[in-house]
Structures are given as C-alpha cells and as structure tokens.
C-alpha cells in the first residue's frame, strides 16, 4: 500500500524537479566596457538562417520589433552614391538582377527583388528608406559593415564618395551616437576618422592580434571579430586597452550562450530572439 502511494509521489516530484531545471534561466556575470551589459544585435536583421533575406526591410524590422538593441547591416554604395543594405559582391548571387551595386544606379537596383524564399519578392532597401520608416529610430543602434567593392572605380574616389554618403545619412537622421562603423580597410577607417573624430569605428580583422594592433595604432573604438577567432582572455586584453569588442558568427542558441560568457560588448547574432531572451 505504501509503495502504491509513494511511487506516483516520487514520480511527480521528479517531474517537478525536471521542469524546474528545464525552466531555470542561465545567469551571466557580464563584465565589459558597455556598462556590464551586452548589446543584442541582429546579424543583417534576423540573421542569415532566417526565411527573410538578410538585410531586407522585413528582416531588420522584425529583429528590432522582437526587442533587439539594434542590428548589423551590410552597406554598399550605388553608382549614384545611394547607400543600400546588401551583402553580396554581385547582385546575381541573391537577386533577380546582375552586376555590382557600385556599377548600377539606385533606380536600377530599386526594382530588383531577392530570389529566396520561393514565391516572395522582398526588395533591396536603401538606408534612407530604412531610417525614414523606423519608429523611434534613436532608441536603436546600428552597425554598418561597410562592404567596399570598388569594381573598376578608382579606390580614392570610391572611398571619398562612400565617406560623404555615410556622413550625409548619419547627419540627416541624427545617428552619430547610434551608429558603429566597421571595415576591413585601414585607409577607409582613417578617412572616416579624418572626417569626424566622433565616429565609433571598428576594425574587422582576420585575427585578434592584427585587430588589436590596428585598433590601438589608429585609436579606434573597437574590434569586430568572429567568435571563433577570439577568446574570453583576448577580449579582456582588448578591454584593458579600452577597446570595445563586437562578435559575430553566432549561429545557434548554444553559441549565444558561449558568446555571452566571453563578455563582449556587442553580439551580432543569427539567433537574435534567443539572444534577447538570454540577456533579459
């Protein structure tokens, strides 16, 4: 009789314990330069595993509406100096038109649509369109990953056009405190620095040591680096040099958790919804 009573009791207790454990939220002791908080950024909006095309208006807005602090965007410049959110070198890689962004005008790109997913026709968006249509714009932060695809254009002319276009868009929408600019090119970052010393500039290196060297030498705001190429200890070194760290390459829930444990200042995640829930 006792066994009959205790068995379901134990089973219930076990189920309660399992449920409690499965619901317990992971706690993090975050220490960084960002007020001991990690800013949750989408990677091109909802990330490259989303069914929305990366950098599309729909992807970016959904990311912000889920409660992200901001998002990373890939930024390119058209032939007529319009900044657009687009990743690939050639438009044919993911849209129904061909050519480099740099070789086409905005009116030629405006009518293009992404090829995937099937049956959809999501458009490429200009930064002007994007920022004109985000409510409470200044509550969000944006990282511009500047994709410098020169094509046949003179590099100096291209860089100059690009920097001027960035300045115009940042000024127009009063985003100086809300924008982080990242690039792999030292000369481009130097040009931006000469334009405005208040820009928050990030080097996007191939290794941590290279990034630390460039960021220290140029007195940049920080380093953007794949989570695979940076350790918790290296992030501490960057922080001790007063350099902020943004990590990307976060493609799973466990990568979100592992990334947080490294104490970066910004995480650009492809699983943004999960990252937000972990950090809140």
């Amino acid at each position, binding site marked *: 009789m006792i066994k009959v009573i205790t068995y379901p009791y134990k089973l219930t207790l076990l189920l309660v314990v399992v449920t409690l454990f499965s619901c317990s939220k992971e706690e993090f002791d975050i220490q960084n330069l960002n007020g001991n908080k990690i800013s949750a950024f989408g990677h091109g909006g909802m990330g490259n595993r989303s*069914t*929305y095309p990366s950098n599309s*208006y*729909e*992807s970016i*807005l*959904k990311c912000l*509406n*889920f409660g992200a602090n901001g998002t990373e965007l890939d930024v390119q410049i058209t032939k007529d100096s319009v900044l657009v959110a687009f990743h690939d070198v050639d438009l044919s890689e993911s849209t*129904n038109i061909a050519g480099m962004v740099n070789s086409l005008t905005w009116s030629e790109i405006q009518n293009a649509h992404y*090829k995937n*997913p*099937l*049956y*959809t*026709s*999501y*458009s490429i968006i200009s930064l002007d*369109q994007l920022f*004109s*249509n985000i409510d409470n714009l200044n509550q969000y932060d944006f990282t511009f990953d500047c994709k410098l695809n020169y094509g046949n254009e003179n590099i100096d002319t291209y860089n100059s056009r690009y920097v001027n276009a960035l300045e115009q868009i940042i000024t127009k929408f009063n985003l100086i405190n809300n924008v982080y600019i990242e690039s792999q090119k030292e000369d481009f970052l130097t040009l931006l620095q000469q334009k405005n010393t208040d820009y928050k500039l990030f080097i996007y290196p191939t290794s941590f040591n290279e990034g630390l060297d460039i960021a220290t030498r140029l007195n940049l705001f920080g380093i953007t680096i794949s989570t695979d190429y940076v350790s918790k200890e290296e992030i501490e070194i960057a922080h001790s040099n007063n350099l902020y760290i943004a990590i990307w390459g976060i493609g799973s829930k466990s990568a979100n958790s592992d990334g947080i444990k490294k104490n970066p200042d910004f995480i650009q995640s492809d699983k943004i919804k999960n990252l937000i829930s972990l950090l809140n």
Partner: protein
Amino acid sequence: MKLYLAILLLFTYSFCIAQSDSLSTKKNSIYLEILGIGGYGSLNYERGLFEVNKIKIGARLGLSTYHLTDFTTSFNPDIIIPIAIHAQYGNKHNAEVGLGQVISNIVETNEVTFNPERTTNIHANFTIGYRYQKPKGGFVFRINYSPVIEFYKDYRHWAGLSVGYAF
C-alpha cells in the same frame, strides 16, 4: 496557361468522380513534403481520382507558410497553397509526374507606406520523380524534381522529398 490549367483541373476532377468506383488502391494520402512546390515544406492531402491498369491519377492540395507573424510581430501568416494533379505508373514502386499551380499570399512591405501588405500571386509547377506506395496503403515516400515557374515568369530549379501515409 492559367486558364488551361484550371480547365484541366476541372475536367480531370469531373472525369475522375465518374470513374472513382474503379479504384483498387487506397484513395487518400497525407504527406509532409520537405522543400517541394510548397516552398520550404508543406502539409498535403492527396485524393486518388481514378485508376486504369497501373496508371493512377490523383489531385493534391497542400498548405504551407514561411512566417506566422509579420515584421511588426503581429499574427499575419504567409499562406502558400500548392495544388497539383499527379499521375503515377507502377504498383508499389511508381514513376510519378505532376502538373499544377501554387497560390501564394505573402505579407511583404508596401512600397509607399512601408506597412505590411498582402500580395497574391500564382505560379506554375511540374514534378517528375519516384513514389513508393503500396496499393493497400501505409507508408508513402516521394522524391522528385519539381521546378517552379515563379510568377509565371522565372524558371526555378527545385526538388522535394515527402513522407506520409496512405489510407
């Protein structure tokens, strides 16, 4: 082309109702298709319409979506409805061909207001592939090449794999 397919569907359906008594294979099947004409995946119901010797004709209706909520996070699902007629030849191992349309009702962005807006489009598709299904029913497996003529304009290579149950 759209009109042609609509007439073909109606004609085949009415013809098949008259012939349905002759079915010896299980008439109904449901299957989950990965990729395929539903996009990234779809749930489908298929009804056997008629059967002559080893040739079986069936009609398929499916449902799929990409997002249940739109970019404002409001409940506003994309709706994708694959419709097709399939012909199979064989007993347990079948060669299968199909022809159909997909109706898509997708939430995108209005170019002027930048608010969510539904757009409806029709696309054509055909399939050619292999189907495993015993006449007495049970497990169904399909694998096929299923290109789509998106918006009746762009030819897109596509493929699908289905598992389901016939009853």
